[in-house]
């Protein structure tokens, strides 16, 4: 592919190259994830040592931790922004925007995404969103403080909580930028996958990663506009005096609000119409990465490829029909609640298909234990743990007691955050050689895996104990309640494990940046993998392939074919 000489700016900043854009997303997502992690550490600091003074922290947060003690409003801002940053700016940006952009053209045999300019625009639209979200910590009243779900009236009325002043406005503006960016990305994914596949690459020969990104693109396109609409209407309620989400008779701070005619439930429906597909937007790519990674390192074809594709499709479709399970006790019609139980538990079926197919991919394998495959195996374990606890919460009769408790926090940190994060880590270890032409340190990678895996279970499994015992989410100090006081040792244990978990991630960050310069130079196909992306040069340039784009002669999982000399047959070999 011909193109002119590139200046620094057109190469590294306003790049059209999908790989550079993917790497830009990585950098942004990892920065945001690091900040989100610090917020988590602060949250756990308060829960492990309620209201204990930490004088040195006053220097960092003169208002939120005046005289070293965390204020309740700062605590609320912390978990609000932790959720927002992690869900949107780490777990959506890294696996979807980052890996989607980086991998789709490589895996389908395309020179670039269908709309390179849109791709660049999409990245540079999310950057201001991220900056606005971070800035919101430093404005009067602090960052948004109505939870990542931003339920009105708390999020709609400025006097309801300090963070609902400027902080919430910035949150909404940041989210609108995010949605705009993500929608552009989704469109690009779908168009690229449908139109730019190389010769021979039928849909049913695509790697499961690309299948997942394809479905994710559709999910994003259809669900994120609901959040954009909601955020816009909420902005109107806050600034223009409309009443989409606000009924008559709201009385806050000795003032009767002038609103009338709206309902807060409308926001919940709009939010969760996005919010539920969103968790699968996070999950599906992780499932795809895991399938590709396991096949490569088990030296086996992925078991049940066809049903894996159908499962991705079924999960994607069902994800639009389950949002009401977040609203069983919200005041929504109980009859509607019953419908959502059926659709919600139906998702367990394609999920079980995935879990068993992975198990049977590992069985009869010859597993190579690399950092990537360890994280892939970790995904399988976390996915099953988190998936099973979903059955409690999806059954509305049982959800009554567990709703809004730490059981929910434990559940989604396994299934969505955990499997999503482990999938992304596995993917970084696996595809890093294509990203930077160098290998990550396997030794550091394995240390990172072991700390992360053990600490992850130690942090999030005991949260189920807390939830079953009745500890609510989002409370600043559980010891206010007598019945929660005996749980303090569990909270302390979780806090210590969370510190270890956070520290373990520093190893990854070091490995990621240090290996760019000092990593062992990668060969073209360091893992002997069969996917099309491994036919590119070690550090592919703009256009990906120097000569012709190879044809796809087979599916990407031809490992250990009987009678073959090698234990894999690349997709591009006839």
């Amino acid at each position, binding site marked *: 592919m011909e193109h002119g000489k590139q200046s620094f700016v057109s190469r590294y900043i306003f790049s059209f190259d999908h790989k550079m854009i993917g790497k830009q997303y990585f950098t942004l997502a990892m920065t945001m994830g690091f900040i989100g992690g610090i917020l988590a550490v602060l949250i756990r600091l308060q829960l492990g040592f309620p209201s204990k003074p930490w004088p040195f922290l006053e220097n960092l947060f003169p208002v939120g931790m005046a005289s070293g003690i965390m204020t309740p409003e700062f605590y609320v801002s912390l978990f609000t922004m932790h959720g927002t940053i992690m869900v949107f700016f780490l777990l959506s940006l890294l696996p979807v925007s980052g890996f989607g952009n980086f991998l789709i053209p490589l895996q389908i045999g395309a020179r670039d995404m269908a709309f390179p300019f849109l791709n660049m625009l999409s990245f540079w639209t999310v950057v201001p969103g991220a900056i606005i979200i971070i800035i919101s910590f430093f404005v009067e009243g602090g960052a948004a403080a109505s939870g990542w779900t931003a339920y009105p*009236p708390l999020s709609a009325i400025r006097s309801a909580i300090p963070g609902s002043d400027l902080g919430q406005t910035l949150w909404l503006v940041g989210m609108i930028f995010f949605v705009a960016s993500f929608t552009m990305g989704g469109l690009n994914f779908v168009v690229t996958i449908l139109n730019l596949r190389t010769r021979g690459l039928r849909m049913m020969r695509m790697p499961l990663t690309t299948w997942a990104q394809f479905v994710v693109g559709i999910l994003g396109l259809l669900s994120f506009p609901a959040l954009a609409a909601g955020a816009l209407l909420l902005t109107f309620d806050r600034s223009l005096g409309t009443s989409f989400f606000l009924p008559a008779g709201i009385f806050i701070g000795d003032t009767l609000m002038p609103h009338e005619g709206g309902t807060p439930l409308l926001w919940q429906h709009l939010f969760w119409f996005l919010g539920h597909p969103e968790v699968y937007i996070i999950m599906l790519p992780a499932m795809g990465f895991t399938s590709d990674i396991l096949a490569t390192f088990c030296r086996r074809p992925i078991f*049940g490829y066809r049903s894996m594709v159908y499962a991705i499709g079924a999960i994607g479709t069902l994800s639009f029909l389950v949002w009401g399970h977040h609203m069983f006790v919200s005041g929504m019609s109980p009859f509607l609640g019953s419908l959502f*139980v059926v659709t919600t538990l139906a998702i367990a*079926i394609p999920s079980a*298909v995935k879990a068993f197919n992975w198990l049977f991919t590992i069985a009869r394998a010859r597993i190579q234990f690399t950092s990537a495959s360890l994280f892939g195996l970790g995904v399988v374990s976390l996915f099953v743990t988190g998936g099973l606890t979903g059955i*409690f919460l999806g059954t509305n009769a049982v959800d009554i007691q567990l709703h809004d*408790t730490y059981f929910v926090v434990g559940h989604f940190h396994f299934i969505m955050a955990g499997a999503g994060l482990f999938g992304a880590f596995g993917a970084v270890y696996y595809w890093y050689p294509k990203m930077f032409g160098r290998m990550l340190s396997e030794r550091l990678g394995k240390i990172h895996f072991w700390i992360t895996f053990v600490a992850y279970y130690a942090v999030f499994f005991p949260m189920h104990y807390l939830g079953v015992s009745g500890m609510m989410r989002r409370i600043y100090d559980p010891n206010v309640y007598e019945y929660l006081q005996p749980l303090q040792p569990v909270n302390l244990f979780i806090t210590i494990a969370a510190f270890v978990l956070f520290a373990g991630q520093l190893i990854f960050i070091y490995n990621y940046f240090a290996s760019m310069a000092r990593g062992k130079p990668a060969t073209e196909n360091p893992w002997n993998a069969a996917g099309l992306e491994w036919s590119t040069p070690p550090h592919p340039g703009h256009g990906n392939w120097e000569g012709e784009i190879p044809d796809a002669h087979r599916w990407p999982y031809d490992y250990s074919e009987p009678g073959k000399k090698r234990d894999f047959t690349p997709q591009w070999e006839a």
Partner: protein
Amino acid sequence: MADEPKGSRGSLQGIAMAVVIWAIVVLSSLFYVRYGVPELASDRGYLDSLYYVILGITGAAYILYQLALGYVIYRYRGDRPGATSSHWHESHKLELTWTIGTAAILIPIVFTGLIYWDRVRGPAPDDAVTVMAVGAQFQWDFHYPGADGEFGRFDPTLYAIDNQIGLDEGDAAAADDWVLTNQLVLPVNRPARILMRSKDVQHALFLPNFRVKQDLVPGMTTEVWFTPVKTGSYEVACAELCGLGHYRMRAFLEVMEEADYRQWLNDNAPAAVADAAPPADSPPVSAE
């Protein structure tokens, strides 16, 4: 094979992975047993039974799957003697088995859940004691309708320090109404119907010992009903983020013997005494 990634063979990673997964399964399950739901004080024990049934099923699935995962990782690790891997990647029989198997396990859970949900969310019995819970940042007010069984009208313009629920004293039905702050008193073994409204933001009435949780939504009246079956004092929590004082929006629920309840009403709200025990032969009081 010579061209395999370095360090991926001859390592202890596979054995370690299996052992760690097994250890996690054993420890997490052993500790799980130590934490149960809070002591039950309502008639909603069947919700607990369903919880324990699901715990049994998912617990078994969790243990079996993770043990199997650990086993296949150990058994098929690349450095075992004579390691080979198989190209086998399809079995309609197996795939059909686990698809149908999962569905077969889920269907009874779904239906039991729906039946229980219907029981919980069905209409309250006519002899229920009716109370209106009014949530505000960060306090609970419990509004009793008094002898007439009818709540006096409320008007948001009347909210004041000495009229937390905005009761319109001019309304005839309001004459015998009375309000308790952060305290709810109910008789034992009689259904209690709690209506709910919020003055400001969303809250959720959470009675951990009674398996009751329901959001309070501004602009709507929501409701639950249940029957306390054990006397005593229980904590009432807010379970929906409602502001910086969310964590301390706490109240108490006192469940009393019928006779004590009547005595307590006599002492505290004489006008409301008739509400304590409607005569069995008179038409039940309706709080519509």
